[in-house]
């Protein structure tokens, strides 16, 4: 199966600045942890990527200790400098292999997200305010 189906990327906004990025990995396929990278377009939006979840450790004869993901992996990304209503693209690079003995070169998948309009964002904190009062 093509890499964008084997390692299906999706992203959704949890709030005006937080993106939940997810790879759904098909059965019999795995991703290399150190080959998963995220970026935002435009770059001016800025992206904070936390340390990725630990994967399953595997000893590779050539590369030594490598970590892999199976099933899926979810990462919460933070947008640093975005305006309400702005559109951003989350680009996710990944590289992995199939147990049947195939590997895919790094591929980039993109998801476009539209940030909520100002009115929606203004409403959100007021909804949450009572927790902090």
């Amino acid at each position, binding site marked *: 199966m093509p*890499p964008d189906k084997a390692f299906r990327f999706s992203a959704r906004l949890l709030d005006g600045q937080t993106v939940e990025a997810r790879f759904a990995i098909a059965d019999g396929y795995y991703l290399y942890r150190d080959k998963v990278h995220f970026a935002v377009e435009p770059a001016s939006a800025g992206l904070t990527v936390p340390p990725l979840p630990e994967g399953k450790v595997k000893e590779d004869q050539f590369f030594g200790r490598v970590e892999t993901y199976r099933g899926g992996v979810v990462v919460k990304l933070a947008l640093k400098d975005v305006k309400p209503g702005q559109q951003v693209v989350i680009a996710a690079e990944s590289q992995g*292999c199939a147990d049947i003995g195939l590997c*895919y*070169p790094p591929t980039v998948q993109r998801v476009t997200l539209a940030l909520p309009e100002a009115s929606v964002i203004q409403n959100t904190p007021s909804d949450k305010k009572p927790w902090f009062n």
Partner: protein
Amino acid sequence: MKSHLRRGLILGVAALIALAAGAGLALWDRPPKRADALFALSLPDTGGTRQSLEQWRGKVLVVNFWATWCEPCREEMPEFVRAQTELGPRGLQFVGIAVDQADKVGRFAQELHLNYPALIGGYDAMEVSQGLGNHLAALPFTIIIDRQGRIAETHLGPLKPNQLRSIVDNLL
């Protein structure tokens, strides 16, 4: 009666169209017979010297697309080294095209005592492989070319040693 005839005729025409479409698809799916796109490639080796694949025309050529980050690729390569040693004198020539960085390829080639050229293809090499039947753009992908420059076999995924031997034995 007439309507039966008409229905029969329509079914007949539909069957013919389906047959023609099937044949067209089969032809479309078949890898190109000639390896000209490969012979036209000129790629740097690990030392940076450009090597044209044309220099190996006339040999039974096994072109293997691989990378150091591809474990199944690395696993099948010792067998390629053995086959190059044993069958090289009879006219077999392996050429590896690595979709990778030259330093990593050089280090791995040294570790494995690679006895055939390791060229650096980059991602543009993947496009050539896609044009020659690597529909998934995955590795390893191997193309076996006869002495007349025709593609005898393309294979996605690791080649079993006996599979490789039986294909090249027929061509040598």
